[in-house]
């Protein structure tokens, strides 16, 4: 029977492309959309200041999409994140502005509070088996109401400068003394970091291939590896350079990048991640395999609460005021990002990279359409159609394969 084992490690290029069409398709779609808006905005999209804005405007959607992806993979949904954003933003404003507490205390407190909010919802979903759609719909109303209550219907601001700079600040140029071209490159450090990261990515990519080959694990075709590395490197260096000519890396970019790395690791390599996928794929089988599905569900909601709280503070700091209306409709952007990124509404399927790219597709479209001067009416319409098209693409592929 051993004759039927996989004989070759060399998958044909066509077969590989077919199996991974979703991931490449998504990247290609992002690039196409970017190029399209670059042309149609006559080059405004890729201007250093606009790229910086794009990151600042979308960081919180990306951060929340990380938590939402886990929730969706687990087979649930969270409609309350927009309200949690406003609620924790409001709480942070009260502590910082009204009570004058230092941000180094307020930030962790708010993250814990976000976790408690998530736990309060996760409890009903996980242990009382109430559908998450209903629990978080209730949460959406409850926490929006609480926000109005604690803020007493008034915005609170402005924030202390140091807190603001967490969200709107930039990583200082630690290498200013060796900057070869200070007149064009404003932040040499960020450029060096990008180059180092690209070099590391290539190095580890090659190393991993070598190890895989030794152990007989399947590798993607070399052409794809080179192509993928080349495109990623060029895009990264280009964006890094653009940022370097403006003010360098925004602080939130660093936070976001670290979180993306953490959650990618969590979903790919950790037992928790594996269990969430198994639970979303077949909850009963996961439970009968000894997985505590209730606790796991509970913690995915706690995690979502923490991330929503972080996003809430970033938004409050960015707007320099906590308002009762903050974050209205964000849940839809976040959920849309996950589904555009290939997550399955029935659970068990979805990738962090997909959700991140999905969030940026939404972000670039928002940004590009605003630059062109398209009204909010058309923006919503286009975004809705893109979401539908992306999911249709998934379903179509699945039925065909």
């Amino acid at each position, binding site marked *: *029977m*051993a004759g*039927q*084992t*996989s004989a070759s490690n060399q998958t044909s290029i066509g077969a590989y492309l077919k199996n991974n069409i979703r991931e490449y398709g998504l990247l290609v779609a992002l690039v196409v959309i970017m190029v399209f808006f670059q042309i149609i905005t006559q080059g405004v999209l890729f201007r250093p200041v606009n790229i910086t804005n794009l990151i600042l405007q979308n960081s919180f959607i990306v951060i929340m999409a990380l938590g939402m992806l886990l929730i969706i993979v687990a087979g649930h949904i969270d409609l309350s994140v927009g309200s949690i954003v406003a609620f924790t933003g409001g709480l942070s404003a009260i502590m910082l502005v009204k009570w004058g507490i230092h941000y180094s205390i307020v930030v962790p407190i708010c993250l814990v509070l976000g976790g408690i909010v998530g736990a309060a919802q996760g409890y009903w979903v996980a242990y009382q088996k109430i559908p998450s759609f209903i629990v978080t719909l209730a949460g959406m109303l409850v926490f929006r109401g609480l926000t109005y209550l604690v803020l007493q219907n008034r915005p609170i601001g402005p924030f202390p400068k140091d807190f603001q700079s967490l969200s709107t600040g930039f990583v200082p140029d630690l290498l200013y003394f060796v900057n070869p071209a200070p007149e064009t490159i404003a932040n040499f450090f960020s450029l060096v970091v990008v180059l180092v990261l690209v070099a590391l990515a290539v190095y580890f990519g090659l190393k991993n291939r070598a190890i895989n080959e030794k*152990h007989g*694990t*399947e590798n993607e075709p070399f052409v794809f590896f080179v192509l993928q590395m080349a495109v990623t490197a060029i895009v990264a260096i280009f964006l890094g350079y653009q940022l370097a000519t403006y003010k360098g890396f925004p602080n939130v970019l660093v936070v976001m990048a670290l979180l993306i790395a953490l959650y990618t690791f969590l979903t790919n*390599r*950790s*037992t*928790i991640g*594996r*269990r969430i*996928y*198994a639970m979303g*794929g*077949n909850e*009963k*089988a*996961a*439970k*009968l*395999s*000894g*997985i*505590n599905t209730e606790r796991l569900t509970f913690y995915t909601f706690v995690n979502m609460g923490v991330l929503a709280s972080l996003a809430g503070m970033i938004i409050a700091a960015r707007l320099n005021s906590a308002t009762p209306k903050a974050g209205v409709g964000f849940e839809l952007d976040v959920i849309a990002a996950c589904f555009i990124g290939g997550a399955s509404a029935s659970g*068990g*399927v979805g990738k962090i990279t997909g959700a991140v790219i999905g969030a940026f597709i939404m972000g670039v479209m928002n940004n590009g359409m605003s630059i062109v001067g398209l009204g909010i009416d058309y923006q919503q319409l286009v975004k809705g159609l893109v979401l539908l098209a992306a999911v249709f693409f998934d379903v179509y592929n699945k039925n065909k394969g």
Partner: protein
Amino acid sequence: MRKMDKIILEMRGITKTFPGVKALNNVNIKVREGEIHALVGENGAGKSTLMKVLSGVYPAGTYEGDIVYDGEVRRFSTIADSEHLGIIIIHQELALVPLLSIAENIFLGNEIASGGVIDWRETFSRTRELLAKVGLKEAPATLITDIGVGKQQLVEIAKALSKKVRLLILDEPTASLNETDSDALLRLLMEFRAQGMTSIIISHKLNEIKKVADNITILRDGGTVETLDCHKEDISEDRIIKGMVGRDMEDRYPSREPKVGETLLEVKNWNVFHQHHRDRQFLHDVNFTVRAGEVVGIAGLMGAGRTETAMSIFGRSWGHKITGEVTMRGKPVDVSTIPKAIDAGLAYVTEDRKHLGLVLINNIKENTTLANLEGVSRSGVIDDRKETKVATDYRSLLRIRSHSIYQETVNLSGGNQQKVVLSKWLFTNPEVLILDEPTRGIDVGAKFEIYSIINQLAAEGKGILMISSEMPELLGTCDRIYVMNEGRIVAELSKAEASQETIMRAIMRSGEKH
């Protein structure tokens, strides 16, 4: 006898292949108008598949061969096509909506309406007529959930009558019915025959078949064995079994020299209440032991409480108000949650591998390690190479046929899926494995392999508790057999004592007592 010369249905050379399994291989069957034609065969012989081909569940083009119905070759592409010609199939799992009324169910998809508005008066009066025909005394507005399985079966038949049925196919109609309900159903079929209706009945209950059938077609391993005419000769049950089994028992079960050791699992005074009907006691004082190197069987009819016994022991995954004691090697163990049961050395291989056993959208590797991720990880981080090695090893050990360990389990054949579930539990290194219908729905070759694995495990000193509805399987593999009925263990038979008759007698005798 009535004249039954006209052939209403002929299926010629039907061959149907699934990935990895040839479910039907050149099957031929002829059904005469106005007869009751029985279709028998072991589990996995292809009976249900054949009926799905006939009714259009598997559309024309997905199988080879011809269906000739009413003198013409038919190519059904949906169930609606076959229903349109009066071919109605009633599946083992009834297709009724529990929270709708009898009347609503009967006319579901076929509502008596004009312009989308339902004529309730007409619906109810027609329902009353149909219910009278099947002898069911219930109000048309009664909800399905409020009547028993036997009556639900009659509703299904009434629904078939409403569609102007000419050929009624019943898949295991009496499997979940008690004797009185079964008799009533069979009498009804005979009445229909007197009125000229044709039926095909799939059943395991040979005594019932003997009672009603005009012709019996026997399937084995996806092929037709023979058709027996009940009017030409007196067909005994043994004669039918011979056709179904076709060869000696020794061939089907690998031999084994049992080396029985100390007692591993012992369950004492196990009492369990029903999961949903919470005031109903379901299991009564169940006691049993499993020793090292021993294969112990649990026989019983559907609903006897075998699966419930296993699941309630395995981390209380079924039932509530569970009392009793579980010991391993003489020491009491806590099996109150599934992780604790696994730690205590138990593994439960479910009867429902698609819904409870596998994460079908995940691959072989991920399913293999699911119950013991700690075994391939360190501080919560999975060691990919270790996991790959574990999955590769089990794949070759259990001969899982797949193109790699990265194949999604949804694409595997039943036998290979079962081997993946077994891999998962073997990797938890259990002392006692509870196997619930381990060979259900898998083909004969794969069954032999599963039996060999069971023997191998027993030889390694593991205790095996095997639940099966196929008595020959239990007789062929087990060293000792417990018989369950109505939530109680009613007999314990040694290999020497056990036979189909002694098992059935134990069930019948206990049924009289309660």
